Structure formats: structure tokens, C-alpha cells
């Protein structure tokens, strides 16, 4: 009987933690969004106008990433139909966490802000998108950008 009650208690706090985590992650993402908007305004102040969507993505991979993380994106892939995958083999926010699979479950917290950053930057350049991140082996990670047709 006592065990049963305790088990229910544990489950509840487990769910609560899960919900809190989810709320925090989306809050981080929205903060990143606002910061991305401001940053892109400053970074594109003196650059010539972008030719097309690919030009915008290249800017994010090179200039934007360098200004924020002091390195470029290592690999950009696209299916030319609105999906881009940005691969960073040594993501600065993960390098001090681990060099393999340890702490993999904690990685999303550190990627949420950056996803928002990219989404905010793109939004201010007139590109609506959904940005997600995935990590399989730290410190490499992939950011997936799905362009939303407005």
C-alpha cells in the first residue's frame, strides 16, 4: 500500500519535471528567436541584398555562424525543396559537455536557444521556417531547417 502511494508520488514529479523541461526548452527557443532577429539586423546592415533562399542559408552558415560561434558550419545539405541540414562537427556549446554519447539526453537544452537564433534570423530576412536540432555523437550536431511557404 505504502509502496503504491510512493510510486504515484514519484510518477507525478517525473511528469512535472518533463513538462517543466518542455516549457523551458520552448522558452529558450523563443528567446533565441528574438535575439536572432536583432543580431541579423546588425549583421546585414552593410551587406548587399540577398539573391535567393540559398544565398540566405549560405550567409547563415558562414557569416552568421562565424560572428556568433567563431567558426563556420561544416556542411550544408539541401534537397532544393525547402529543407536544409546544417552540420556543425564541433558545436561550441557542446564541446565542453562530452566527446561521445555521455550526457546525450541533456543536449537539447543547449541546442534550443540556437534553434531559435536561426529561426529568428531567417524570419527577419523574410524566410519563415521551423528549426530543429539532433545530436547523435557529441560535439557534432545537425540543425534541420524546414522552410515554410507563406
Amino acid at each position: 500500500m505504502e509502496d503504491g502511494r510512493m510510486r504515484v508520488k514519484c510518477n507525478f514529479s517525473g511528469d512535472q519535471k518533463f513538462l517543466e523541461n518542455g516549457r523551458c526548452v520552448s522558452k529558450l527557443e523563443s528567446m533565441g528567436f528574438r535575439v536572432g532577429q536583432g543580431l541579423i539586423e546588425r549583421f546585414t546592415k552593410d551587406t548587399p541584398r540577398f539573391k535567393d533562399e540559398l544565398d540566405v542559408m549560405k550567409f547563415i552558415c558562414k557569416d552568421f555562424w562565424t560572428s556568433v560561434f567563431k567558426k563556420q558550419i561544416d556542411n550544408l545539405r539541401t534537397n532544393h525543396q525547402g529543407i536544409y541540414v546544417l552540420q556543425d562537427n564541433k558545436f561550441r556549446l557542446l564541446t565542453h559537455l562530452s566527446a561521445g554519447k555521455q550526457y546525450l539526453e541533456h543536449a537539447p537544452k543547449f541546442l534550443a536557444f540556437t534553434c531559435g537564433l536561426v529561426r529568428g534570423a531567417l524570419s527577419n530576412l523574410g524566410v519563415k521556417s521551423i528549426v530543429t536540432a539532433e545530436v547523435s555523437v557529441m560535439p557534432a550536431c545537425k540543425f534541420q531547417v524546414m522552410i515554410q511557404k507563406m
Partner: protein
Amino acid sequence: FLICVAIRANYPLYIRSVPTQGELKFHYTVHTSLDVVEEKISGVGKALADQRELYLGLLYPTEDYKVYGYVTNSKVKFVIVVDSSNTSLRDNEIRSMFRKLHNSFTDVMCNPFYNPGDPIQSKAFDSIVSTMMVQAC
């Protein structure tokens, strides 16, 4: 006289004129100038080099005033309307006015208390525009 406007997604964030009366009749001018801006940035029949510039130059002259345009990479449009009789303002002076507007606007964007899309109420922005307009008139 002189009017400065900042527009985002087709509605104005900021309108300022010297002298301050008679602003309403310029809303129409500014609105039609937006069409010209759209045309210019969509690059219909224009050389590639022109398309990449932010400064759009003289949008169209009417008998009473001249309208100049400028578009940022973040699709914010700045429009300056000048009295035709004011011939002392040269092209590079207008360019530098747009530069100042763009710089101040960037500062406004980076202010974490400012929500993109809201009207601009920054005192710093106001004072920069005031100084600029006083110099120009």
C-alpha cells in the same frame, strides 16, 4: 519640408515630418511609393548589380516633391519625401540620411524591450531623426 517614414510589412512603424502639420496628405504618397519600392526590389528587368544595393534612389518625382527609397535586408523600407524646391539636397546627402536611419533602426531592433512590429517610440531614434531633419531643411 521633409518627411521620414519607416515601414515594415506594409504598415508604418514611424512617421516624422518637418513641419509637423499636413502629415496626412503624405500618407498617400508614401503608400504609392511602396508600390515602386516593390517593383524595384523584385528586379523586373534590372541589372544584377542594381538589385544588390540597399539604396533605391529617387523613386519618382512629382511636380511638388521627390520621393527616395531604401530597403534593408530585413525588408524594412525607409522612405524620405522632400520638397521639390529643396534643390540643395544632393544624392549622397540623402544616402547618408538613409544610413543614419538604418543605423538607428538597428539599435532599436537590438533593444530587448522593443517588440518587432510595434511603433517605434525610442527617444534616441527620435533625436537622431530630429537632428537629421534640422540639418537637411
